C-alpha cells in the first residue's frame, strides 16, 4: 500500500514539475501573432486587387498560412508563386486561371477633360491613389497606383484607361538571357555555329 502512495506521489510530482516548466515556457516563448503571415504578405504584390477572392493581400496571406492554394494571385504571377513555394516548402504550381491571368503591369490614367468629378473611382481605389473632390477633376498618383483595375468598373463615363507602365531610365534593366542552356536554343537553320 505504501508503494502505491509513493508511486502516485512521485508521478504527480514529476507532472507538476514538467507542467510548471511548460507553463513558464509558454510565457517566455510566447509568439505574438503569426510571423509567417507577415512573411507571406511581404511576398505578395500589394495591389489589393481582390482577384484572389479575398479583400486584400493581407487576408490572402492569412488564408495561405491557413492552407489555401498559393496560385491565386494574378498580379504577382509566376514570380510570386515561386517565392511563396520557396518560403513555404511546397511545390510551385501554375497560376489558377479562374482568378485571372498574368498581364503586363499597367497603371490607371484618367482622361481628365472627360472626368465629371463623381468621386466613385476614389471610393473604389484600395490604395488611395486617386486625387480629387466632388465636381472637381480627378487624377491618378502614378507612383501609388498598383494597376488593380478596380476603378474601371464604377466610372460612369468610362474615362479611365489602363496604360502599360512606361520604361524610364530608372526602371529599365537588362533583359534576362533566356537561352543559356544548349538544349533550349532553337535549332539553327544555316549551320552558322561552326564547330559544335
Amino acid at each position, binding site marked *: 500500500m505504501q*508503494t502505491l502512495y*509513493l*508511486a502516485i506521489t*512521485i*508521478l504527480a510530482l*514529476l*507532472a507538476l514539475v*514538467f507542467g510548471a*516548466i*511548460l507553463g513558464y*515556457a*509558454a510565457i517566455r*516563448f*510566447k*509568439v505574438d501573432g*503569426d*510571423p*509567417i503571415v507577415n*512573411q507571406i504578405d511581404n511576398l505578395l504584390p500589394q495591389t489589393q486587387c481582390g482577384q484572389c477572392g479575398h479583400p486584400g493581400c493581407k487576408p490572402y496571406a492569412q488564408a495561405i498560412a491557413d492552407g489555401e492554394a498559393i496560385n491565386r494571385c494574378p498580379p504577382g504571377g509566376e514570380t510570386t508563386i515561386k517565392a511563396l513555394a520557396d*518560403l*513555404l*516548402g511546397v511545390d510551385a504550381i501554375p497560376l489558377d486561371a479562374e482568378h485571372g491571368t498574368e498581364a503586363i503591369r499597367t497603371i490607371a490614367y484618367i482622361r481628365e477633360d472627360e472626368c465629371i468629378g463623381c468621386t466613385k473611382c476614389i471610393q473604389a481605389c484600395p490604395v488611395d491613389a486617386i486625387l480629387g473632390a466632388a465636381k472637381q477633376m480627378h487624377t491618378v498618383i502614378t507612383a501609388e497606383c498598383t494597376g488593380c483595375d478596380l476603378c474601371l468598373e464604377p466610372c460612369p463615363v468610362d474615362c479611365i484607361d489602363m496604360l502599360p507602365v512606361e520604361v524610364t531610365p530608372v526602371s529599365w534593366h537588362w533583359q534576362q538571357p533566356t537561352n543559356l542552356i544548349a538544349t533550349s536554343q532553337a535549332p539553327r537553320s544555316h549551320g552558322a555555329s561552326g564547330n559544335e
Partner: protein
Amino acid sequence: MVDYLLILVSTVLVNNFVLVQFLGLCPFMGVSSRLETAMGMSLATTFVLTLASLCSYLTYTYLLEPFGLEFLQTISFILVIAFVVQFTEMVVHKTSPLLHKVLGIFLPLITTNCAVLGVALLNIKKANGFIESILYGFGAAVGFSLVLVLFAAMRERIAVADVPAPFKGAAIAMISAGIMSLAFMGFTGLVAI
C-alpha cells in the same frame, strides 16, 4: 573512448533503429517525400531524441530507482518525452517559424515516434551509464536522420522516374524501403555489440 565510438557506430549503422530494429517507421514513410522536410524532421528528431534519452536516464536513476519504482518507467518516460517535445515545439515556434511551418504536424508527432520511447527503454535494459545513454540516443537519432535523408533523396528521384502504374506512389516507396533495409543488413558483423 573506443566504447563510445562503438556505441555510435552500432546505433548509426549496425543496429539502425529504422531499418534494422524497425522503430520510427511512421515519420520514415510520412516525411520522406521531400528532402527539405526530411532534413528539418531529422534535426528536430535528433534534438528531441538526445534530450529525451538524457532526461529519461536522469528520471530513472534519480527518481524511480531510489524509491524502487522501476515498474513506473514506461509511463514516466512517456511523460518525459511529451514534455521535451512540447518544450521543443515552443522554442522552435518562437525561434524559427519557418521550420515550425515546414515540420507542421510532424513536430508534435515526435511524441509518438516509437524510436524515442524505444531508446529510453533500451538504455535502461542495457544498463547504460550517463554518457552512454546520451550517446546511444544521439547515435539512434543520427542513424534515423541518415536513413531519412537518404530515403527522401531516393524518393525525389523515384518521383520523376518512369515507375510502372501499379507500383506508383506508396507501393514503390515500401519496396525501396525494403531494399534499403536489406542493404543495411550488410553492416551486421561490422561491430559486435
